[in-house]
């Protein structure tokens, strides 16, 4: 018989879901990384929102609204009968930054894809995750024709802490993407350990 107290209801059949965020600038390879490791073809979901223009004065309030959509793509990896991992790419457009809040909520950590042709496009992702104390790794995607920066050069340019892993990757290669995720989750475990003993 169903009980009103949800704590006592059996929920064994429903796995635990966790998520990893794949961030980076426009065209950095986010969708490619998600596809290369996902067990399903990446799915896309849309969030509707209203774009509000605010008046200059306090009494102005919301004056105008335009509905717009933001697409999120994601993939899935079934870890066990008990655990399912979702990988969410961040929206390519900066103006959807507020979607990042929702994405980051409860996330295990983040992969920041750094495109060496335009490293600056991932600066705000680094800032965002640093500020929220969400563990992240930097995966350097090497595109054809891009300067081959060393790990140290990228680390210096991004000004990330020495504990943050910076790894070379090719998001198109499943094994390479897998290694990036292994780096991230290992880093999350280390960070957790450090936080507990610190």
């Amino acid at each position: 018989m169903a009980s009103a107290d949800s704590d006592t209801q059996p929920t064994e059949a429903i796995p635990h879901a966790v998520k990893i965020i794949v961030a980076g600038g426009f065209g950095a390879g986010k969708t490619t990384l998600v596809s290369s490791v996902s067990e399903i073809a990446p799915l896309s979901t849309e969030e509707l929102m209203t774009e509000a223009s605010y008046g200059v004065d306090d009494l102005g309030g919301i004056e105008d609204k335009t509905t717009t959509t933001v697409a999120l793509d994601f993939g899935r990896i079934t870890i066990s009968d008990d655990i399912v991992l979702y990988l969410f790419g961040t929206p390519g457009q900066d103006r959807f930054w507020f979607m990042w809040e929702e994405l980051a909520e409860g996330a295990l950590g983040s992969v920041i894809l750094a495109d060496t042709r335009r490293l600056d496009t991932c600066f705000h992702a680094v800032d965002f995750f640093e500020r929220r104390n969400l563990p992240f790794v930097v995966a350097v995607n090497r595109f054809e024709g891009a300067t081959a920066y060393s790990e140290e050069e990228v680390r210096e340019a991004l000004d990330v802490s020495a504990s943050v892993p910076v790894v070379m990757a090719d998001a198109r290669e499943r094994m390479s993407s897998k290694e990036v995720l292994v780096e991230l989750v290992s880093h999350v475990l280390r960070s957790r350990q450090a936080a507990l003993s610190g």
Partner: protein
Amino acid sequence: MTAPRGRGTGTPWDGGRGHPGTAVEGGHAPVVGDSTAGPLVRPYTMTKGRTRPGTDGGRLDLITLVVTVADREDRAREPEHEAILRLCRKPVSVAEVSARLDVPLTVVRVLLSDLLVEGDLRTRAAAPVTKLPEKKVLQAVLDGIRRL
């Protein structure tokens, strides 16, 4: 081309709104309006005037898994509700319901909430307040990824 020399201190998101954004290449749609455009907020009207899911709405995160209750009441339901119940015979995440049924998240949350209230769907018990995945979950995730 040289590597940028660091991120600097001012970040685009300090102000929380109206940030200048990063110059991006590529054919993105321009920001509606101009630099005075405000933040983006959720719509107020959707699904028969409701945008707020019912009482269970707070539990519907992107990755909340929902599953159809096997011995649910036999009664007439809206086609959208029926479609969700068919899709969720096995646990499915909120994001996946939205993607597979091609219904925006905002709307899917309202529909899922209806079904939760009716007892047609159930979710995993709410996560503890800490929200951080436990160590044994992380270890299992790491092992699982290594097996890929």
